[in-house]
């Protein structure tokens, strides 16, 4: 794992129109996706959304009903996992309990029938890479969860895969260790230039680590883009809700302005940045992030939702308010420093936002 051009190492992965059914249940439906060589890509979605199945299809663990996977342009078809340029880090790690740390990591190299000397050297390097130097003789049952996690990583990386598949590898770790491992995974990915395809249900994890994120639900890929873009312009109601916190106001497009739309919702009128597909009379949802909602007791009129504070929660650098404005519930996260005025439950305030800080999403 020494000098090599990172750009050249990670393979380009393309999924074309894959469909996987389990009996009558469609796990993955017509998903197409192109992942660049050396990219850190995350598949994000709630459990049962098809993200793990998609990953397993790339690894060759599932027989698909339709479509194909291309690794560096080569159709994989029914190529078994042992003949693909991919390696997988399994959710439950799947370390071999009858082997030592060393033997676990050496497994893939032994399968390649490499000479012992090379195996020793590469296992040593892999263990250094995941900071497990000196633990090679330990049994799998004698090391901690975090260390097992690193062994699983080393066992996959030692083979120098062109694509590393990771199936919620950090889900068993506690928060602190998880954050630490997230950083290490990012570092490893940068250093090795391997294409990482990472499956997670944790949107924070996906946003923090990935170059791009694909959001899945119900077997379909809903949106693909860099974390910032997905946060700023969620494609639909589901994505808006799943990524970060969101206020979602359902209504009907009343009129179009230069860069904004005006939405009529339950007696209130709100504005959001125009996406292009909106037409007057159409049903739409306005999405605005809580930290972009301003509260002002003196403000009223067009674009302002008047209401009473229903709940207040202090969480360090922000104060979170919930406002009852007629049938609507509006969340606002107000930055807090010493001296910031606080509203009390029951106070009447106006909530408003800059139209450029909100977007319309389809109501799906």
């Amino acid at each position: 794992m020494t000098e090599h051009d990172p750009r050249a190492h990670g393979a380009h992965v393309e999924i074309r129109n894959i469909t996987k059914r389990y009996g009558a249940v469609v796990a993955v439906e017509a998903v197409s996706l192109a992942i660049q060589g050396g990219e850190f890509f995350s598949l994000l979605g709630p459990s049962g959304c098809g993200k793990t199945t998609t990953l397993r299809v790339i690894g060759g663990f599932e027989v698909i009903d339709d479509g194909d996977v291309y690794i560096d342009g080569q159709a994989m078809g029914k190529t078994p996992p042992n003949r693909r340029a991919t390696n997988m880090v399994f959710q439950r790690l799947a370390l071999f309990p009858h082997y030592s740390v060393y033997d676990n990591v050496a497994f893939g190299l032994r399968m390649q029938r490499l000479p012992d000397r090379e195996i020793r050297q590469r296992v040593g390097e892999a263990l250094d890479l995941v900071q497990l130097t000196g633990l090679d003789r330990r049994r799998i049952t004698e090391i901690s969860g975090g260390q097992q996690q690193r062994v699983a990583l080393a066992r996959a990386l030692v083979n120098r895969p062109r694509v590393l598949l990771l199936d919620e590898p950090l889900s068993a770790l506690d928060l602190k260790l998880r954050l630490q491992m997230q950083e290490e995974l990012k570092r490893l990915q940068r250093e090795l230039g391997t294409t990482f395809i990472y499956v997670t249900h944790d949107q924070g994890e996906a946003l923090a680590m990935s170059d791009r994120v694909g959001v899945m639900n119900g077997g379909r890929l809903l949106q693909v883009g860099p974390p910032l873009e997905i946060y700023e312009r969620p494609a639909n109601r589901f994505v808006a809700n799943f990524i970060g916190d969101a206020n979602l106001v359902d209504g009907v497009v009343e009129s179009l302005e230069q860069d904004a739309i005006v939405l009529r919702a339950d007696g209130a009128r709100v504005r959001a940045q125009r996406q292009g597909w909106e037409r007057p009379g159409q049903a739409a949802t306005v999405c605005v992030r809580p930290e972009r909602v301003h509260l002002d007791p003196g403000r009223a009129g067009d674009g302002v939702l008047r209401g009473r504070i229903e709940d207040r929660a202090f969480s360090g650098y922000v104060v979170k308010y919930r406002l009852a404005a007629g049938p609507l519930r509006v969340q606002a996260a107000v930055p807090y420093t010493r001296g910031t005025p606080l509203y009390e439950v029951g106070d009447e305030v106006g909530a408003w936002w800059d139209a450029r800080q909100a977007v319309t999403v389809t109501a799906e």
Partner: protein
Amino acid sequence: MRLTGRTTLWLLAPALVLMAVLYVIPLGVYLINGFHEFRDGRILSVWTLRTYAAYFTDPFSYRVIGTSLRLSLVVTLLAIVIGYPVAYALHTRVKGAAAKTAIALLLFSPLLVSVVVRTYGWLILLAGQGLVNTTLRALGVISEPISLLFNMRGVVISLTHILLPFAIFPIYSVMGRLDPSLKEAARDLGAGWRDTFLHVTLPLTMPGVVAGALICFTLALSAFVTPQLLGGGRVQVLPLAVYNSTVEINWPGGAVAGLSLLIISMAAVRALNALLRRLPTA
């Protein structure tokens, strides 16, 4: 809930009483006979080690022990070698709980038939003009009938048949507890079917193999009806020796032979249990 010592004792009491009354006490009473002597058709109530001395200096005793060990080892080995692929197929190829249950029932069905009936069944099948010989001749495998009755072969065939489920189910149950992603991990790391089996599945299912072997070996060692009926007096094993001595009222001789059977069984259980503890669990 943690049980107190007293509660545990009460829960164990029925089993302990049963074991004491029906097993430990009769066994003790019988084994005491070993320290008496059988001469001129009657038991002499003297305290002596002569029966032991006679038993352990008689070459026939060792032949019987040897036959017993050979029979049990061969049967155990065959049951495991035949049973392992069956368990593997049941685990990997048979889909659906209903199909698995049906096949499991089928495999266990020989146990629902009385040992005597089953053994007579084998007598018919293994006879010179029986189904096995006629089939083998029809297929051209043999030209003359082979003798499968009243020798070791018939006993081995029949015992292996009946002990097969005891080999299959411990192995099958360990396979079921194996994390399926272990096999996937091996495949992912470049292992083909053969390497996956040799380096992952087989070592991790060894606890099932050892447990199955333990059951088969002890059951084969204590088998009585099958060697009696299919061996035709030519397969002299320890249980038969004990039985023959006992019907001749030679209780002292039977007791000593019985004790050697007990010691061999216990040694096998100990050895295989020690092996079981050393094996990794998945």
